[in-house]
């Protein structure tokens, strides 16, 4: 038996993403990369940003690719993020990272905007578990850094 709270944390969509990781496998042709480690548990994510090559304005991120290992929360979080990043202007992407961070810091008080965050709203339950927020944030922090290093 698991509590309703735990079932909310580990929704089927999270477990599915943790198993079938979207965007997994680093691809060539990136214009920014970041490696993030959660030193308390050794979880790690390496994430690359693939920008559009045609010099479009505003600068658009076509996709991300990533590799890593860790708990189902960190792995699912990277996978839902990969689904989200599809031909998005950088500014738009930063806003979504901001929205996700806000959701994570909400202690369960926010639902999360599915339009903006897609499957990532399923990670909302993490915000009730203060020790797991870092796990969920890991790939999003990697994305922020990868966007900044160009």
């Amino acid at each position: 038996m698991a509590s309703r709270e735990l079932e909310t944390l580990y929704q089927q969509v999270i477990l599915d993403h943790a198993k079938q990781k979207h965007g997994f496998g680093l691809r060539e042709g990136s214009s920014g990369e970041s490696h993030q480690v959660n030193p308390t548990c050794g979880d790690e994510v390496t994430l690359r940003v693939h920008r559009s090559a045609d010099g479009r304005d505003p600068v658009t991120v076509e996709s991300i690719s990533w590799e890593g290992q860790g708990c189902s929360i960190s792995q699912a979080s990277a996978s839902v993020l990969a689904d989200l990043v599809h031909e998005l202007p950088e500014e738009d992407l930063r806003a979504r990272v901001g929205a996700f961070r806000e959701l994570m810091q909400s202690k369960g008080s926010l639902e999360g905007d599915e339009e903006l965050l897609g499957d990532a709203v399923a990670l909302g339950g993490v915000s009730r578990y203060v020790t797991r927020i870092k796990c969920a944030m890991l790939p999003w922090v990697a994305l922020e850094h990868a966007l900044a290093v160009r």
Partner: protein
Amino acid sequence: MTITATTTPIDDAEALRLRADFPLLGREVHGEPLIYLDSGATSQKPRSVIDVERAYYEETNAAVHRGAHTLAGEATELFEAARERVARFVGARSDEIVWTSNATEGLNLIAYGISNASLGRGGEAAERFRIGPGDEIVTTELEHHANLVPWQELALRTGATLRVIGLTDDGRIDLDEAAAVIGERTRLVAVAHVSNVLGAVNPVSQIVALARSHGALVVLDACQSAPHLPLDLPALDVDFAVFSGHKMLAPTGIGVLYGRSELLNALPPFLTGGSMITTVGLIESEYLPAPLRFEAGTQRVSQAIALATAIDYLDAVGLDRIEAWEAELGLRLFEGLSRVEGVRILGPAPAPGVERVGLASFVVDGVHAHDVGQFLDDRGIAARVGHHCAQPVHRRFGVTATTRASAYLYNTTADIDAALDAVAGVRAFFRVA
């Protein structure tokens, strides 16, 4: 010698009576009664320890070893009585006991003392500690980061070489390799008494014998032994030893460094400043003998007194009885985990010649340790997840993280069974079974 009240073994009924002395253990987590199996990280505190710390602040608080008023005198007496209590606990003399913040600080104190000796500090007496290129420091692959990183830094500062004794595939210190690594160049051997991950008591006497035959110093990390089994440091014949109060029913912020008197009085100080001096000039100063020369600044008085009370508690129960009870709980845990499909335990199986304590670190196939720990937490079970500040030993066994359950005197067989029952449900919950 400690005289214990009784020689009958601890059983579940007595463990439950002991538990009633620990206010925190009465609380709930996620609506479930707390089952605390993380004492390897930090122990809970009995009411007597909490009360003595409060009483110190309500009745006696003053700076020690300075001031002439009544409170200062009383506080100093309590502080030094606590030192004597700790000394008696480990079979040492009180001038061989140095207060530190924790074991980590104790190990750094030794490493920086040697470092300072290597820079020429401490005069002739400290020459025996000087190391440099060509000298070797030896440690093992199972160490906590606290007994590894300070030696890495010491080697890097002095030009000495750090060498590491590897492990057998079943998780014991490889004594053949130890015999090959420890040699004429070895100046210091640092080893844990009990591994905080693998849960076995290490062959300290064999390692001490190897070190002695080459004239090397031995530093013992006793963090996982001092709280759990009778400890006689002079009998173990180690030169230095460290442990932390918070793992043995005492508050955080207090630790112990034991050193043979002759060595402590030769080792240059690490932290310097007030309290550790005799005469201070504008350019140079002279220092007190050990242990006070290692205790710069205002000390952790309430914590030291509370540690003595914690030791009173442990001795009243009896360390030999605690050791036996935890061995029983540890065996139940080990055997139970061994029967759960998809679970692999790090560390040697209990066998003749392999003494295990009451902890086990394990991997659940297909489920990350963080997720295992979350599932346990949902049932009110507090276990540690991650690398337990020992990345190299995890790497040695091909994993980045494990789940660790660690028991203490207040745990029962029912606690172990609840943990086993929860672990058995992990793979089904995460759909990997």
